[in-house]
C-alpha cells in the first residue's frame, strides 16, 4: 500500500487562510456528499482579490495513460522540431523543404501541395476542420486535446520532467522550494533555468525554420547573418516558451485559455470525462479503518496520490472542474493504489456522468463504443469529413494556370492607319507548376482579330500567340488586339491553353472598345 504523502498539506489547509474556497476544501466531509441535496452552505471566508498561485509539484507516475502521454509527446515534439528538416524534391525551380511558409515569395509548401495566396481558402478550410475537429474530439472523448495534444500541455509536461530531472521528485521539490537560498539552491536553479532557456530557444528556433530554408537559416543564424526578424522572433518565442511552459503552466489553462470555457459549454452528462466515482469511493477511510468497519467505508483510502500526480494541482474528487485537463494521470495513480490494496481498478476513470449514475444504480456498464458513437459525435464526424473531402476535391481539380485581363482605359481604343481598331490589354498569366510552361493565348469571340504583344511585333500579329511563363510565376504581358475597320464594341474573351499534355485552360472575359460611330 502506498502511504499518504507526508509532505502534502492537510485538505483543509490547501487554500490560503483568507481566501474563498469551495465548501469541499473548507470542509472535507462536505465533499463526500456531492449529490447530497443537504449540502452545507458555502463557507464565506474573508476574501482576497487575487488567488495566490500554489506551486504544482506533480509526482512521477507510470501507467498506461502516462505511456500514451509519452507517445503523444514524442510524436508532437518530433513533428514540431523535425518537420522543417524534411526534404521534398520539387525540381530545380522550387525549394526542396517539405513544409515551408515562404512569406517573401508568398508560397506555402506542404509536401506535394503548393498553395498560392489566392488559394488561401485551403488554409481557411483547414482551420474550419481544426475547429470542427476539436468539437468532434470533445464530443467523442472529452477534453483529450487539453490532456494530450495541446502545445501548452506538451511543453508543460516537458518542463515538469526537467524539474524532476534536476530537483528530484515531488517531495524533494517541495523541500527545495521552501529551503533558503543557499549556493546549492542557486546552482540548481541556474542549471534548471538554463535547461528551460535551451528548450525555449529550441522551440523558437524551430519556429523560424518553417519560414526559410532550414539548413541555410541554421547556418546563417549562428553566423550572425540571418535577418533581424529571425533573431527577434526567436527571442520572443524563447521567452514565451519559458514563461508559459516553465513558470505559468496550469495557470494558462485555468485563467488564460478560452478553450476550457468553451468546453464547459460543450460537455454534458454524455461526455467522456475523467471522473471520481464518489458512489464507490465515499466515505473515504484508510485501509486500517476500513478493516475495522468494512460496511461504512468506500474504496477510496484517501491516499491523495491522485492529487500528487496531477499536473494542474487539482483534486479530482471534488468533481469535474475547469482545471481538469483530463490527462488521466490520476487514473494511473489510483489504479496502482487499488491494485496494491486489492480493490478493483477504476475508482477514478474515464466515464460519462450518465454511465456513472447507471453504474451506481448497479446496471451493467455500456460498451465503450456506445459512449463514443452517439448522434452528436456522428454528426460532427460527418461534417468534418464533408469539409475534408470538399477540400481534397477542390485540391484535386484546381487549375494550375490563371489569367486575368485588364483593358487599357486611356485611350480605350486606337484607330490604326489602315482604318482598323486596336485595343490594348494587360494580361497576367499565372503558371502554378514548378516548371516553365508554354501557353497559347487566343482571342475568343472577336471576328477577324489579330494579336501581338510587347515581345512579338506587329509584323507577326496572328490570331494566337505563344508565350512562355517561368516556373511558379506570374508573367505580365502587354497584348494588342487589332480588328478590321467597322468592328463594333463588344465583349470577348482571352483564352489561355497550356502547350503541355495537360492542356490546361483559363479564360478571362473582357471588352473591346470602339468609337461611338461603330456602335451597332
Amino acid at each position, binding site marked *: 500500500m502506498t502511504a499518504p504523502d507526508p509532505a502534502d498539506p492537510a485538505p483543509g489547509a490547501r487554500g490560503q487562510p483568507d481566501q474563498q474556497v469551495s465548501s469541499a476544501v473548507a470542509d472535507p466531509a462536505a465533499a463526500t456528499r456531492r449529490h447530497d441535496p443537504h449540502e452545507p452552505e458555502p463557507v464565506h471566508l474573508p476574501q482576497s482579490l487575487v488567488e495566490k498561485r500554489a506551486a504544482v509539484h506533480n509526482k512521477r507516475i507510470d501507467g498506461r495513460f502516462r505511456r500514451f502521454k509519452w507517445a503523444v509527446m514524442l510524436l508532437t515534439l518530433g513533428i514540431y522540431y523535425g518537420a522543417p528538416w524534411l526534404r521534398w524534391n520539387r525540381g530545380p525551380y522550387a525549394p526542396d523543404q517539405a513544409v515551408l511558409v515562404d512569406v517573401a515569395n508568398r508560397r506555402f509548401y506542404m509536401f506535394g501541395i503548393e498553395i498560392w495566396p489566392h488559394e488561401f481558402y485551403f488554409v481557411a478550410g483547414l482551420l474550419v476542420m481544426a475547429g470542427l475537429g476539436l468539437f468532434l474530439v470533445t464530443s467523442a472523448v472529452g477534453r483529450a486535446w487539453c490532456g494530450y495534444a495541446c502545445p501548452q500541455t506538451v511543453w508543460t509536461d516537458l518542463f515538469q520532467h526537467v524539474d524532476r530531472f534536476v530537483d528530484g521528485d515531488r517531495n524533494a521539490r517541495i523541500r527545495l522550494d521552501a529551503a533558503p537560498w543557499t549556493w546549492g539552491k542557486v546552482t540548481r536553479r541556474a542549471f534548471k533555468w538554463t535547461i528551460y532557456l535551451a528548450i525555449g530557444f529550441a522551440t523558437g528556433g524551430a519556429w523560424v525554420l518553417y519560414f526559410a530554408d532550414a539548413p541555410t537559416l541554421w547556418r546563417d543564424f549562428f553566423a550572425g547573418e540571418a535577418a533581424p526578424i529571425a533573431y527577434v522572433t526567436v527571442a520572443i518565442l524563447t521567452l514565451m516558451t519559458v514563461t508559459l511552459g516553465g513558470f505559468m503552466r496550469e495557470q494558462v489553462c485555468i485563467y488564460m485559455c478560452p478553450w476550457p470555457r468553451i468546453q464547459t459549454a460543450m460537455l454534458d452528462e454524455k461526455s467522456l470525462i475523467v471522473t471520481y466515482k464518489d458512489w464507490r469511493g465515499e466515505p473515504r477511510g484508510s485501509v486500517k479503518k476500513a478493516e475495522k468497519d468494512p460496511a461504512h467505508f468506500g474504496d477510496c483510502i484517501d491516499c491523495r496520490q491522485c492529487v500528487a500526480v496531477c499536473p494542474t494541482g487539482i483534486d479530482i474528487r471534488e468533481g469535474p472542474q475547469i482545471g481538469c485537463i483530463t490527462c488521466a494521470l490520476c487514473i494511473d495513480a489510483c489504479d496502482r493504489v487499488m491494485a496494491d490494496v486489492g480493490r478493483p481498478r477504476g475508482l477514478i476513470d474515464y466515464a460519462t456522468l450518465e454511465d456513472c449514475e447507471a453504474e451506481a444504480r448497479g446496471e451493467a456498464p455500456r460498451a465503450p463504443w456506445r459512449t463514443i458513437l452517439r448522434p452528436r459525435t456522428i454528426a460532427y464526424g460527418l461534417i468534418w469529413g464533408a469539409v475534408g473531402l470538399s477540400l481534397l476535391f477542390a485540391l484535386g481539380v484546381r487549375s494550375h494556370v490563371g489569367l486575368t485581363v485588364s483593358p487599357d*482605359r486611356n*485611350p480605350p481604343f*486606337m*484607330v*490604326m492607319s*489602315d482604318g482598323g481598331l486596336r485595343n490594348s490589354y494587360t494580361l497576367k498569366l499565372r503558371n502554378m507548376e514548378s516548371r516553365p510552361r508554354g501557353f497559347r493565348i487566343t482571342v475568343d469571340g472577336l471576328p477577324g482579330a489579330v494579336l501581338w504583344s510587347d515581345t512579338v511585333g506587329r509584323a507577326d500579329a496572328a490570331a494566337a500567340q505563344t508565350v512562355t511563363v517561368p516556373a511558379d510565376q506570374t508573367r505580365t504581358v502587354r497584348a494588342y488586339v487589332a480588328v478590321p475597320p467597322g468592328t463594333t464594341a463588344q465583349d470577348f474573351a482571352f483564352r489561355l491553353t497550356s502547350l503541355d499534355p495537360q492542356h490546361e485552360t483559363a479564360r478571362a472575359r473582357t471588352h473591346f472598345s470602339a468609337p461611338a460611330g461603330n456602335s451597332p
Partner: protein
Amino acid sequence: MANSRIDPATGTETVGHEWDGIEELDTPMPRWWLWTFYLTIVFAIGYVIAYPAWPMVDRATKGVLNWSSRGDLARDMDAAEQARTGVHEALSRVPVERLPDDSALLAQAVAGGRAAFQVHCTQCHGSGGAGSQRLGYPNLNDDDWLWGGDLRAIEFTLVNGIRAPGHDDTRQSQMPPFEGVFDPVQMEALIDHVLALSGKAENNRQGAQIFADNCAACHGEAGGGSRALGAPRLNDAIWLRGSTREDIRRQILNPRMGVMPAWENRLDPATIRMLAAYVHSLGGGEDFIAKADDPAVEVDDRP
C-alpha cells in the same frame, strides 16, 4: 469628505459620496501607472531637447539632433536617386535600338519612362499618350509616325524636338500656305482628291493634277508622306487635324504645324531613353532597321 470611511471589503477609503447606497472607492493610482506617467514626462523633456519643439517667432527651436521632415525627404530622394543610378548607367551604355535585346532593362526603362511621361509629356499628349485631334497633338499609340517610329527615331525626336526654336538639329519642315492660290473649284477638286487617297471620296482628275503639281513633292504621288520631311501620310485612316472637308481646306489654306520642345537640355540622356522606350512600347513602335550608309537608299517606303 465628511462621510469618507474605510471600505471593509477592500480596506480602501471611499471618496465620501453616496448615491442610493452606492459609494465610490478612492483607490490610489497603481504604482506602474504612476511610473509610466513619470516616464512620459522624462521622455517629453528629452524630446524637447532633441527635436524641434518650441514655436518661436519665425520658426521652431531646432533641437540638438537638427532633425527635420524636409531633411528626411531630401535623404529619401537621394536614396531613390542612388537606387536609380544602376539603371541609368546601364541605359547609357546600351545603344537605344539594342534595348529590346535586354528584356529586363527594357522593362525598367519602360517603367521609368512611364513615370517621366506623366511629368513631362502628358500636358500635350495626354496621360494615355492619345494626343488631341482638336489641338493637333499626335497620338503616340497608333502606327502612324510623322518622323519615324523606331527607338532611334523616337529618341532623336525627343532630343532635338520638332521645329524647336533655336535648336539647330531640330526636325524642321514647313508647308507653305496656299491662301489665294486656288480658285474655289480647284480647291474642292483638290479636297476630293485628298479624300480619295484613302478611299473617302470619288477620284477627281482635276484634283489629282493639282495634287501632283503642288503637293506630291512632299506628300508623295500616292499621298504616302515622307518621314524625312515630316510630311504626313494622306492615304491612311489617321488624320492629325481632322478629316472633314472643312478641316482639310483649312489645313491647305493656312497650315498649322506642331512644335515640340527639344528635351536635350531639359532631361538627362537616360530619362530620354526611358521615354523613348515607353513611347515605343505604347503599341505602335516599329523595329529598328539599320540604314545603309548610302543616303540614296530609302528605308521608309512602307505601303
